[in-house]
């Protein structure tokens, strides 16, 4: 579908097939069209072109009331003048097949599940952010819809609560087995919660697939840079006769990479921080370095406890125009200003076309660092 607001195209030519019970996360930076897409699915906006089908039925001309969906808003949108019980019960009132007592019982059942039974007779204004979020969830769950729609529900929570709710949302989704479309700008939520991720940028779909697929085999530079925290390192340069040359580095390509890159000369080399290896500069200085090793200076170290993010620059790069960052174990001590040897295994390198951003070569997973199914 395509959605335009006047002259601006919010969503362009987006096509997605979401199977039953899937948890799909729509992720992307602000303004990429993910919320607009969600609102079109909900019926709060109408697509300019294209069609929306839920359960095989054409939805374009159906009002939100008749789509059998439930939505959790970013600001929860709880009715302030009603108690929690009345808030949750409101959506059930329009559902046929319940008697009044059955509705009351169901409200109690869902409140119990979410741990908010003690708050049923309070007003939303009296609750904390986390509690309000649970009420908003309860309001959605109680109606047993075909689809759950969630518009950045965790953005207003503090970090600890967010992590807790992430797990709980996944558990709820597993339990109820309802198709969920979840919108967020946070790639951690996307990676940890989803069955599949759809990455959007400026209204266009960049890639859709399973989290690890997007992580290890991104289709373009945008997806590569968006997924993963800390983000992938990118070095721009030229490819000539099997060697990559940037302003400060030279990196020979092996046959596999050369085959994929072909004749393209302006390329971007991408490597994830955890694939960069650091070791101490040997006694002889930079004379004994192998092909894929470079000498670099540590500029800043960010200790996270479980790991360190080490920012590195080339010794001649005084203006720090081409820094890369590496991940080391938390117990590895590296001081700023130290000279180190950086090595990058060619198996872990991604190459992108500088002009189009398209991925020409992605890392190989057949080495001993491959993904193992437990």
């Amino acid at each position, binding site marked *: 579908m395509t959605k335009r607001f006047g002259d601006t195209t919010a969503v362009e030519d987006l096509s997605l097939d979401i199977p039953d019970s899937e948890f799909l996360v729509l992720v992307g930076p602000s303004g990429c069209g993910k919320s607009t897409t969600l609102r079109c699915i*909900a019926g709060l906006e109408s697509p300019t072109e294209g069609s929306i089908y839920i359960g095989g039925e054409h939805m374009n001309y159906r009002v939100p009331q008749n789509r059998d969906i439930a939505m959790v808003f970013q600001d929860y949108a709880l009715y302030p003048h009603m108690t929690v019980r009345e808030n949750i019960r409101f959506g059930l009132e329009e559902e046929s097949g319940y008697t009044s007592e059955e509705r009351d019982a169901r409200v109690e059942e869902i409140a119990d599940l979410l741990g908010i039974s003690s708050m049923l007779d309070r007003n939303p204004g009296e609750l904390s952010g986390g509690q309000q979020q649970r009420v908003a969830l309860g309001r959605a769950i109680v109606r047993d819809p075909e689809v759950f729609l969630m518009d950045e529900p965790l953005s207003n929570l503090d970090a600890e609560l967010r992590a807790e709710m992430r797990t709980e949302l996944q558990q709820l989704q597993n339990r109820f087995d309802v198709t969920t479309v979840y919108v967020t700008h946070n790639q951690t939520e996307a990676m940890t919660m989803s069955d599949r991720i759809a990455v959007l940028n400026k209204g266009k779909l960049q890639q859709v697939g399973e989290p690890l697929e997007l992580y290890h085999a991104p289709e373009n530079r945008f997806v590569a840079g968006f997924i993963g925290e800390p983000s992938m390192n990118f070095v721009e340069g030229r490819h000539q006769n099997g060697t990559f040359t940037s302003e400060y580095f030279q990196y020979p390509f092996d046959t596999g990479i050369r085959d994929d890159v072909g004749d393209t000369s302006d390329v971007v080399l991408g490597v994830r921080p955890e694939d960069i290896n650091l070791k101490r500069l040997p006694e002889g200085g930079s004379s004994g370095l192998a092909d894929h090793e470079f000498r670099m200076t540590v500029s800043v170290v960010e200790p996270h406890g479980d790991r360190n993010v080490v920012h590195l620059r080339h010794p001649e790069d005084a203006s720090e125009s081409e820094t890369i960052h590496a991940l080391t174990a938390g117990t590895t001590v590296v001081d700023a200003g130290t000279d180190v040897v950086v090595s990058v295994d060619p198996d872990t390198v991604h190459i992108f076309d500088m002009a189009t951003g398209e991925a020409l070569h992605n890392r190989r997973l057949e080495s001993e660092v491959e993904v193992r199914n437990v």
Partner: protein
Amino acid sequence: MASSSSDQTFDVASLVEDYSLYRISQYVLVILFIGFFLAPLETGIMTAFKTNRAVAETIPLMPPLAEGFTLDNMMFAFNALSGAFFNSLFMAIPATIGSVLFGSMAAYGLTMVDWRGQLGVLVLFLIGIFLPYQAVLVPLARFWNNIFPLASMVEPLFVALPILQGYHANLVPLMITHIAYGIPICTILFRSYYQGLPTSYVEAAKIDGASITKIYRRIILPISKPMFGVVFIYQFTQIYNEFLFAFTLITGSDTPEAVVTLILPAVGASTSGVDFGIRMSAAFLAALPTLIIYVAFAEQFAEGLKTDA
């Protein structure tokens, strides 16, 4: 308890420092303006309780002295106005409720619901506010007297009802006129309030399956309570104090269905001149219902704000 003498000395020096000429002149100006506004009010209250002799002989601002004090003016005014009070309230309260309710519904439909042609309808409402009452007096009288004589149609019904008399039917056209002419301003007032409400309430209710009317009835109407207080007070004051339409649609101040604004000019007037004591008493008595409504609804208005916070 021991206390040093320095605590008890008044620090004149700092007081003088705090007050510059600018501040003093500001205060003087404010006091002058307060006096300017309160003087007529004070004069009126004083005059209401003075005998005719006292009115002629004492300064208007002075309170009535022992012989000059009388409650006769108040009694007379009350007797003259009592019928009119009932008429005014019988007309004003339903008219206020009607215009406020319809105004709120119209504002909801124009602000929180999307449909084609909204802007055109909104412009019509805006034009409605600026319509001068004077311009429509003659057509209005024609309409209610010749084209659609509602008063005479409804009269038999009123005769049958308790408390009400046949002549009260003449107030119904006035009531409906006020509702009609009150709707535009009420709509605009509510619209500004609804524009400030988050649209996510309406969206969430839609997704919950509620129809547009149900959303108004169950969500928007209860939330607008503070605004209802405000608009009710405003509309009641406008309708109750209104003279022009009442004068046009009700034939005279001597008719039994005359409202307070019609009778007030006639109270206390006689061939020997105007009895100011009676006039002032009547004016203050006439203002009482508005004051009571203000007090009653201001409380509800403040409470409405409290619970939402």
